[in-house]
């Protein structure tokens, strides 16, 4: 029991911070101005919760280094685990949470919504995300999915005085709830197949299938996969994403586009491929890799085409998030345990590594956009970005760097993410996905146009007129936490871009933990077949 609890320490650190914030906040006096929404007395909750998230990240790193053997990382009757894959994504979501906490305090004051619950909700969402990527059963996954989603719905609609924010929250809530229900319906069929909710039980049931099990499996996997496609905003389930991303407070948009997306992909990886390892895939009537690859191609194309036409940087990044979901879905094809990767050194690293690069770039971009918010306005339109490089050099540089990384230009992490992904998908089934890769590369070229357009706006155009400051001067949020968040994410993009081997190695080891069991089964089966052949 104690061993089980110790494995989940990173999650408890964040949970305790959230509970403390929630309980202690009402006792804080609303000094400063009379309106609590404008008061500065809640400012320190940001650094406090960010410290908790970073602490959790450090504990996760410690568990990675010194934790028990991979076989002993499963806790609480096989319902949750601290495997390398879990720890990698726990660390990633803790980073997203820390950035969201650091960038928020002054922004919330500018927007007139400086309430303490905000920080508690972000920490609760981080806890839910961490539990979701650690889940080893459908029940745990459902509960943590809801802990995350309910917190994020409220955060999207957090600016109660803004019709756009509330509308975005409402839309996200409806689509998200339907996705949860669809996920549950799929989980119910997988339960009907195995009599249990853990992935191990599902795998065990698939070893000796009964008649009719193939139907439950196909239905269950299809529904669960559909729910995850909604959560990652894949076409045709992407319509909620631009609205939710645009209406949400900017730090939350960054948190969602980096964290929620990473979590959805990690959980997708665990359910679909964790539960299907071994004989499961043969029973499935749906050609899952082909469906994923086709969805991926459509998603990236639609996302990029819509992103081209957007003027607001925030909405453009929302469509670019859809496009990146497409790239990642193609990476999922290579993560399948049944995919044969010919002579490839880092199997399965594509999705975790790409998500790391995407999350850092996305966090940096939205941190920079947060600095533009002023007096209840978002100010992320094209005219407001003109000459940003001169007026707020740090925000301009960070935004430009993140655009370059998202476009996948060489010295950055985004380039290596795409490189690893393309190499890995090309190795699947002897190049069966070459046409998809060609479309991916063409899409990257198209996306470079709208990413670099922002960079041009920042550095190479004469300054536009901003109408926000009292005398026409430019007002930005300047805050230590925000500066640190921008600097740290930008530095990570550059440093990891210059030395990507270590990060790729970490991603490979994390992916290995979802593939290990499958590989063992595969090797055992092959050896058995060879023996039978000799006899």
């Amino acid at each position, binding site marked *: 029991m104690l061993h089980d609890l110790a494995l989940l320490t990173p999650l408890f650190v964040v949970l305790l911070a959230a509970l403390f914030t929630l309980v202690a906040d009402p006792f804080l006096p609303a000094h400063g101005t009379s309106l609590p929404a404008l008061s500065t007395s809640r400012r320190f909750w940001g650094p406090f919760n960010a410290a908790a998230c970073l602490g959790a990240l450090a504990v996760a790193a410690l568990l990675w280094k010194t934790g028990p053997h991979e076989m002993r990382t499963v806790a609480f009757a096989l319902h949750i685990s601290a495997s390398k894959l879990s720890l990698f994504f726990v660390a990633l979501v803790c980073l997203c949470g820390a950035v969201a906490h650091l960038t928020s305090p002054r922004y919330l004051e500018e927007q007139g919504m400086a309430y303490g619950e905000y920080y508690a909700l972000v920490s609760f969402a981080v806890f839910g995300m961490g539990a979701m990527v650690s889940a080893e059963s459908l029940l745990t996954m*459902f509960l943590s999915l809801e802990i995350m989603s309910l917190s994020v*719905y409220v955060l999207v609609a957090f600016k109660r005085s803004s019709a756009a924010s*509330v509308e975005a929250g409402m839309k996200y809530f409806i689509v998200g709830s339907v996705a949860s229900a669809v996920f549950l319906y799929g989980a119910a069929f997988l339960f*009907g197949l195995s009599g249990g909710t853990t992935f191990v039980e599902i795998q065990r049931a698939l070893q000796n299938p009964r008649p009719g099990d193939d139907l439950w499996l196909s239905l269950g996997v299809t529904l669960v996969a559909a729910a995850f496609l909604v959560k990652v905003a894949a076409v045709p389930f992407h319509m909620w994403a631009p609205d939710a991303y645009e209406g949400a407070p900017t730090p939350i948009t960054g948190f969602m586009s980096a964290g929620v997306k990473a979590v959805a992909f990690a959980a997708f990886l665990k359910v679909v491929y964790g539960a299907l390892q071994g004989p499961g895939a043969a029973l499935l009537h749906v050609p899952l890799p082909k469906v994923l690859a086709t969805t991926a191609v459509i998603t990236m194309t639609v996302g990029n085409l819509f992103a081209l036409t957007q003027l607001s940087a925030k909405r453009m990044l929302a469509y670019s998030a859809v496009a990146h979901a497409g790239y990642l879905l193609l990476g999922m094809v290579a993560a399948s345990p049944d995919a044969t990767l010919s002579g490839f050194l880092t199997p399965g690293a594509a999705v975790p590594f790409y998500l790391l690069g995407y999350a850092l770039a996305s966090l940096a971009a939205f941190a920079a956009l947060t600095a533009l918010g002023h007096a209840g306005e978002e100010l992320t339109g094209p005219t407001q970005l003109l000459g940003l490089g001169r007026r707020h050099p740090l925000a301009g540089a960070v935004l430009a760097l993140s655009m370059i990384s998202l476009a996948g230009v060489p010295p950055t992490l985004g380039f290596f993410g795409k490189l690893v992904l393309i190499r890995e998908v090309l190795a699947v089934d002897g190049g069966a996905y070459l046409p998809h890769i060609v479309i991916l590369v063409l899409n990257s070229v198209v996306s470079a146009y709208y990413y670099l357009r922002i960079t041009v706006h920042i550095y190479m155009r004469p300054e536009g007129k901003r109408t926000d400051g009292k005398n026409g001067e430019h007002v930005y949020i300047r805050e230590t936490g925000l500066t640190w968040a921008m600097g740290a994410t930008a530095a990570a993009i550059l440093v990891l871009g210059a030395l990507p081997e270590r990060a790729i190695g970490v991603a490979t080891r994390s992916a290995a933990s979802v593939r290990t069991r499958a590989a063992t089964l595969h090797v055992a089966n092959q050896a058995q077949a060879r023996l039978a052949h000799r006899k």
Partner: protein
Amino acid sequence: MTVIPLGHFLLLAAMLFGIGLAGVLTRRNVLVLLMSIELMLNAVNLTLLAFARYRGWTDGHVFAFFVIAVAAAEAAVGLAMVLAVFRLKRTVFVDDLRLLKR
């Protein structure tokens, strides 16, 4: 006495789920949407319980309890959001929520 076979329960649940999904896709009143989502969740409960009852697995009952609890939490958040929308826009129809469509 004849026992109703498992398939009947699953079919009923599938129909309820379908009605709920159709409600979400076609109706425009947010409150009706929330009710449709509840219908979908209850269809899931029925599926879980049918499997649990017919095969003698207890995990399904536990799962259904969790679903009920989470559905209540979800309804609370959903209704709070309806209230927030109604305060600002005096409407509960999703067609009137098009500030963000461009």
